[in-house]
């Protein structure tokens, strides 16, 4: 199990997992919001009363605290994926990495630079902040 390969390996794993999770949520979200205006069979504007009825029904279905918890975790994943993505774009273009230099023992790889690792921790902090905010919105833990 790849637990001891360093920070960047953890970042790669989480980025992938969060990406897949967000894409699955995206599909569910499009389907759900589509249902609210009448479902796949409706292609022109439905009667106002029907739309309002479907909306309230959907809202009742989604009021489940399990969905709220899921959305909070998703908030963490979205913020992680987004800010880690920014860090990855910078790293992939070599901007926050060190320049190549002669290797001196003990080797400190330029790709594992402090700038790049600091950005990872910033990402974690922001993602946890998003999680806490979402938990507060749904469960009122801090009453911000």
């Amino acid at each position, binding site marked *: 199990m790849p637990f001891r*390969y360093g920070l960047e390996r953890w970042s790669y*794993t989480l980025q992938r997992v969060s990406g897949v999770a967000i894409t699955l949520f995206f599909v569910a979200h499009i389907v759900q919001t589509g249902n609210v205006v009448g479902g796949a069979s409706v292609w022109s504007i439905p009667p106002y009363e029907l739309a309002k009825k479907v909306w309230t029904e959907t809202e009742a279905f989604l009021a489940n605290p399990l969905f709220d918890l899921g959305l909070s975790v998703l908030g963490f994943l979205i913020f992680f994926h987004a800010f880690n993505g920014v860090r990855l774009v910078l790293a992939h273009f*070599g901007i926050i990495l*060190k320049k*190549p230099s*002669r290797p001196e023992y003990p*080797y400190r790889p330029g790709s594992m630079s402090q700038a790049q690792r600091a950005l990872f921790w910033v990402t974690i902090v922001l993602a946890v902040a998003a999680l806490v905010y979402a938990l507060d919105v749904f469960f009122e833990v801090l009453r911000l």
Partner: protein
Amino acid sequence: MSEVTFKVFRYDPAKDGGKHYQTYKVPLRRGMTVLQGLLYIKERLDPTLAIRFSCRMATCGSCGMMINGLPRLACYTLIEDLKKQTVVVEPLRNYPVIRDLVADFSEFFEKHRWVKPYLIRIDTYTQEKSNTSYLQSDEELERYIQFAYCIKCGLCYAACPVVASDKEFLGPQALAQLYRYLADSRDEGTAERLKSVADGHKLLRCHFAASCSKVCPKGVDPALAIQLLRREVLLRA
């Protein structure tokens, strides 16, 4: 004097093809390396053990193997540093196994050859026949010399998560060598090199997991080479 237990992966396709681990008790001296332990097993306990080694000083790249779950050079790993009573030794991951701890490096070398690891000059006659020297300043040298320290030990290839599942991906060693020649001011094959990896899985499937740089025993930092190469490919090719 204390003892340490070696749990060694055994596999012999010529005999029965069964994969199993065999335990040996090896007396421990201070400063003993895993390679010395394996050679003790080979000399005193079990001569049928197959291992690859040569220089015993981390310069030939022969003795790469999975030691307690991470790819390391056996000659470069002190048993004391592992801080465990049992040393689990297995052949390098992501390579086919020939026998016991010996891995098949043919695909690894094939990918290395594919990137054309030599200087490409437009004027090949001058390159091969005459006595001209190619001048290079210190700054130009610094741009690639780090990646020239590669000993082709294959540890990076074993650590890479993409190599584990994607056969088309060139792997950190080959890509680092591609960049080493690209960044060399004496090389004139830039366009050709960039074009060769601009499409397909060869370069662009690297996701910067940086496991390669973590395990490299010579500080070559292939992850850095690949990101710099990616920058050139995406912005220039």
